[in-house]
Every structure is written in C-alpha cells, then in structure tokens.
C-alpha cells in the first residue's frame, strides 16, 4: 500500500513529534539526575537534598491527604447522585441535572474569589476544608455526569429482578450495580486524583500557612525562593509529577478514555 519512502517520512515526522513532546521532560529529568549545583553529590542525592531543603516531604503529605479526601468523598457522592439520575424518575430531574452540568464548565477562577472572602469571614481560610471542599464540589459535578452515563447504560433486567426479590435501592446500588461498574469508577478515580493533585489556583488562594501547602504550590514557592541553580528545582519537579505519571503509565487507558469522553456529550 505505502511506498518505503513514504513510510520513512512518516517515521521521521512521528519521531520529531515524540522528541518534541518528551524534550521538556528530558530537560527536567537530566537536570534532576545530573551533578548538583554546588558540585559534589549527584543523581539520587539530589532528591534527598530537595526533600530536605525544599520541604517536599511536608508538601507531599498535604497533597496526599487532600487528594485522598477529595477522591473518596467525591467518588462516593457521585456514585449516589449518578445512581439517582441514571435509574430513578422524580420531579425536577432534568432541571437538577442541568444544574450539575453547569458545574462541569464552571472555571474555578470565577468561584475562588467569592469563596475566599466568604470563607474568610467564617474563619475557614487556611484550613483543610477550604482546600478540599471547593474541589469536591467541582469534582462532583463531573462525577455525577460520568456515573449517570454509566448507570443509564447499565443492565436494567438485573435491577428489576433484584427489586422483585425485595432488595432495597441501597443494596441494589452497592451489591448489584457497583461490582460491574468498576471500570467507570476507576476512570473517575484517576481523573479526580489527577485534577486534585495538579490543582494550583485553589490552594494558592486558600492557603497561607506552609504546613498546608500542596506539592505544586510548594514547588512554585520553592522556585521563587531558591535561585542557586536548577538541580534541586528539577528534583522537586520530578517529585511533584511522579505520582500522577506512575498512575498514568499503569492506567493509561482510563486517563485517555476519561479525558476524551468526559468532554463528549452523550
């Protein structure tokens, strides 16, 4: 079908683009593993130094706590609301669903400013809740949409059979429907984890004390303060990016499916 010349040209084009996509990542990795700015140590010692000097240990702990909380709460709430929208009929169903849909497109820039001032007057700024709950709200909007699509397509016959057997709606959800919903739930989990881990604006606005800084926020501040070279900054960047990248490499299909389908209206 294809001539050899054409095939070679294709490979060249694709290789150029793969290189372009990888180049900044290689810049960071090679700097992080290279000789230290002060000379002396090199390689993995840079990570230990960044961990120490950049306080990335504390930032990672915060990020992990924030991400786990946001993922668990928003996935559970989304499963419940998606179940209601996908399998039940009730008054105001369309209106409520459209309200949720608005949240998918809502940019956090628009809500973070009023949230900051309202939470400040409640004394909730600079708390775990001020970072997590706004992100739960953003994630629940998408999660409801995502899980509803799954439950709409789920097997009705099993549900009807279980209902005739007298199973409660609660049991039907957790014992009949959810076991088969694993792929949908995994996709939602990795997406919410990625968005939460990488979120920058909400922690930037809501956090003042260093103990509550998330990893991306810590990296941005570290860049502002640490000017004596690039090695530790690169090592810090690798530390911040690695958890999501590892997830991505193992669960690539879920990332791609979620990011592509998440945008396409059913």
């Amino acid at each position, binding site marked *: 079908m294809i001539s050899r010349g054409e095939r070679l040209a294709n490979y060249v084009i694709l290789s150029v683009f793969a290189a372009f996509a990888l180049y*900044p990542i290689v810049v960071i990795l090679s700097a992080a593993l290279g000789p230290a700015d002060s000379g002396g140590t090199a390689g993995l010692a840079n990570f230990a130094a960044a961990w120490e000097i950049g306080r990335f240990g504390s930032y990672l702990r915060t990020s992990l706590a924030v991400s786990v909380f946001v993922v668990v709460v928003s996935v559970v709430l989304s499963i419940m609301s998606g179940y*209601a929208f996908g399998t039940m009929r009730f008054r105001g169903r369309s209106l409520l669903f459209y309200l949720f849909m608005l949240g998918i497109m809502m940019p956090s820039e628009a809500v973070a400013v009023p949230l900051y001032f309202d939470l400040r007057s409640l004394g909730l700024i600079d708390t775990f809740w001020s970072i997590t709950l706004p992100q739960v709200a953003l994630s629940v909007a998408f999660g409801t949409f995502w899980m509803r699509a799954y439950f709409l397509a789920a097997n009705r016959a099993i549900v009807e059979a279980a209902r005739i057997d007298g199973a409660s709606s609660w049991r039907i959800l957790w014992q009949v429907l959810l076991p088969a919903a694993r792929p949908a739930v995994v996709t939602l989990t990795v997406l919410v984890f990625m968005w939460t881990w990488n979120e920058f604006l909400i922690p930037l606005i809501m956090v003042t004390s260093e103990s509550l800084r998330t990893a991306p926020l810590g990296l941005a501040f570290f860049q502002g303060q640490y000017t004596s070279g690039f090695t530790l900054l690169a090592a810090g960047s690798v530390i911040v990016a690695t958890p999501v990248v590892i997830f991505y490499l193992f669960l690539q299909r879920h990332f791609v499916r979620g990011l592509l389908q998440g945008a396409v209206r059913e």
Partner: protein
Amino acid sequence: MAAPPGEPRRVAYLYLLPAFAVYAVFLLYPIGRAVQISLYDWDGLSLGTWAGLDNYLAIVADEGLRAAFAHALVLILFYAAGPLVIGLALAAILNHAKVRGLGFFRTVVFLPQVIAMVVVAVAWRRVYAPDGSLNTLLGALGLDSLTRGWLGDYTFALPAVGVVGTWFETGLVTVLLLAGMSRIPTSLYEAARLDGAGAVREFFAVTLPSVRAEIAVAVTLTVIAALRTFDLVYVTTRGGPGESTSVPSYEVYHRAFGLGEVGSAAAIGVTLTVVIFVISFGINRFADRRIS
C-alpha cells in the same frame, strides 16, 4: 433525553442530597456571590460602593483589560489552531500508515496532559532561560543574533507561553482525532480509491468530514484551556514583562489579591464563565447538527 427507566422514586432525593449540598454551597452559591460582588467597587476590606455595570464596561473600555482578552485570543491560536493542524496531520499518518510503535507514540504525546502545569512551567522556564537550551540550540545553528531571554522579551514572551500550550494540547487533540479516525469504515476509503482519489483528496473528502464531531470537541477543550491559562502564566511570567502576558484568569487573581479590586476581579471571572458557556454550547450545537 430518553425517558428514564424505573418507576418514580422519592428516595432519589436522598441519594442526591449529599452531592447537591456540597455542590450548591461551594459552587452555585459562590457564582451567585461573584455576580453580586461584580456590581460593586470593593477592596475586600471596607464596605463596597455600588458600581452597577461599571466593572463590566471596564472590560471593554480599560486598556489593560482589553489587552488581557486580546492576549487570550492570541493564546487560542497557539492552544487550539496549532494543535488542531498538527494533530490532524499526525492522526492521519498514524491511522493511515500501519506504523509500529503506535502505542508508545500515543503514550508519549499524551503524557504532557497528566503532568502538573506547575512542573511544565518550571521545565519550559528552563528551556527559555537566557542560558537555556533553546538559545544553546540557536547558537549551535549559528543564529546567535536571535538568542534572548524569551520570557523577558516584550515581543516574544506571549508566543513563548503559547508554544507551551501547543506543546501540551497537541497530544490530547491527536489522540482524540485518532479515536475518531479509527471508526471510519474502510469502505469509504475504498470507494474514494475507486474514484481515483489520491492521499490528499482522500483526506479532505473522507477523513476530515468524518471527524467533524471530534474536531468540535477538540476545539472546545483547547479554547477553554487557553482561556483558563493561569498556572503557566503565574509561574513563568506573572503577566510580564510589563503587561505583555496578562491574561483574564491571571487578572482575576491579580486584581483580587494583588490590587484589591475585588469587584473588577469578580466581573472578569463572571465574563470568563459566560464566554466559556457560550463557546461550549455553540460548538456543541454545531457538532450535534452534524451528527443528527
């Protein structure tokens, strides 16, 4: 929307309640508050004074704000148009030529999507630095006259930020289009071939019309990403040099927490939200009309 299965269930409200409560308190109520605040001149501390629509009129009248929205338009070219052209070419090649290593290539080009934007910004700052690898490359090519501190240059800072956008959106667009192209029935291509169409005509007659919906989705996603450029600008340029890379998202933050013009910040945020809604609905309708 099809009629939902199952009989009427009041219990649905109980299932919705927890999600809706968090959503209403932390998203719906704040957007309402944003509209309210946007109608006042408020510094975030003292009592605000009623401003009516002044904060919105300023978006059109104020030189700095007009510039920020104009910069967003420039970024759209880099975030949406660039990746779309490149993505179409790459996806067509990948779909057409049975190349080896397709999986590897897809993994690699999609990777920028999952890396925290702050990390991306740190990496590109390094590339653009006066002693960075871009200048090293130019020097090696004998183009020393072109070397500069890219992010500190009034003319080049905005395009430099835009190229980063091209870099991380291209993978998403390519993978999206590839998914669309893989669904095109081969019979269409065979028919085109029988008509004596070459590769180029085949692309324009068969491939392009078949991925209209995917193109609409790709444009929606990338345009919205361009309008919401915040992390990247915050870490690389802070809107500088001068105001040459100020963008609406950054202005929201800068005005609310830097200049104490909270009313103006809220107005920009609300405007941004409306623009994003209009784009999403507009492009979706266009795609729907095509499909139905």
